[in-house]
């Protein structure tokens, strides 16, 4: 754990450490529960692109896709709650979370779902702006981290806890920027991974790749949308892990845990 705890670099370091401890099976849970939501996002955007100006006449169909999107969003929120709890336990205990973390705590899951639903409405309203979407995505991660440790189901407490997490960490905007860059890099890496795969498959005798080369081309909107969803899935564990590290650091500063840990390291003669 780095000395300047609470700085963006320290938050990223601690977050990545937590992700490494929670890789199996918690990241798998996050991806499995988040995959349907990302696919529905791709489906909605693609349908709107195809319908274009005729989307108004197919409002019922668009609403049905939106219902599927929100239903899978609820499942994704539960997965994020489980993963965020595993990250918090890993950060507090500096070891991998036990299997008990697989079952989400009811107050945490309910509080997180409430805050995430409010953020979903905000994201829909800000969909026209490009800059706001990464910030709202960062807010989703901090909502997952901030709604850990709630004691009962309610309305005010989860919103207050998530708000404290977003403000006290002072890392929301930097992490939103880093996460956006991460998604862009993951997008490019995935694209070139598919192109390398096509190139390697081209060497197989008798393989007819004309259709695949069209489907997996930058001219295919569905392929690009799927790459975007895949990139978001890849970056999400690190985004939530870093948010958990920021919230954990803020809570430690409030209780004095960070000073006690620093004293323990110095007493053991470890480098800060």
């Amino acid at each position, binding site marked *: 754990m780095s000395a300047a705890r609470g700085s963006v670099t320290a938050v990223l370091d601690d977050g990545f450490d937590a992700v490494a401890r929670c890789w199996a099976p918690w990241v798998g849970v996050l991806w499995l529960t988040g995959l349907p939501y990302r696919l529905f996002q791709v489906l909605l955007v693609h349908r709107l692109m195809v319908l274009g100006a005729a989307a108004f006449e197919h409002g019922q169909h668009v609403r049905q896709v*939106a219902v599927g*999107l929100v239903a899978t969003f609820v499942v994704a929120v539960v997965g994020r709650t489980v993963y965020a709890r595993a990250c918090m336990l890993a950060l507090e205990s500096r070891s991998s*979370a036990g299997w*008990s*973390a697989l079952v989400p705590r009811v107050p945490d899951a309910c509080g997180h779902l409430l805050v995430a639903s409010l953020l979903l409405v905000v994201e*829909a309203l800000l969909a026209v702006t490009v800059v706001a979407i990464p910030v709202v995505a960062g807010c989703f991660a901090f909502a997952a981290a901030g709604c850990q440790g709630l004691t009962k189901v309610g309305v005010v407490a989860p919103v207050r806890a998530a708000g404290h997490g977003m403000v006290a960490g002072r890392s929301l905007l930097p992490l939103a920027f880093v996460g956006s860059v991460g998604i862009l890099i993951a997008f490019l890496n995935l694209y070139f991974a598919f192109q390398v795969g096509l190139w390697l498959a081209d060497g197989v005798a008798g393989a007819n790749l004309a259709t695949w080369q069209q489907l997996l081309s930058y001219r295919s909107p569905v392929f690009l949308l799927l790459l975007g969803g895949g990139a978001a899935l890849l970056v999400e564990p690190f985004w939530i892990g870093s948010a958990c590290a920021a919230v954990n650091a803020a809570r430690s500063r409030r209780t004095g845990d960070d000073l*006690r840990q620093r004293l323990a390291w110095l007493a053991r003669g470890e480098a800060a």
Partner: protein
Amino acid sequence: MRCRKIVCTECSTRWEGINYCVPCLSARRAAAEERSSATGVLAWLVVTAGTLFAAVHLIAWVGILLADR
């Protein structure tokens, strides 16, 4: 530990990977077992269901507006 007390390893209890002294463990268990009030649960249900319902219609409406551009 969170309470700033210094206790030996034998006197602490490990729960969910974190060491607690006896009073902190009792307090944590009491907090964890706190029952949610019916009013709080009902309020959560109404607000969450309403927000998700609004999200469905808002997503469809914004999507149609953006597609029409």
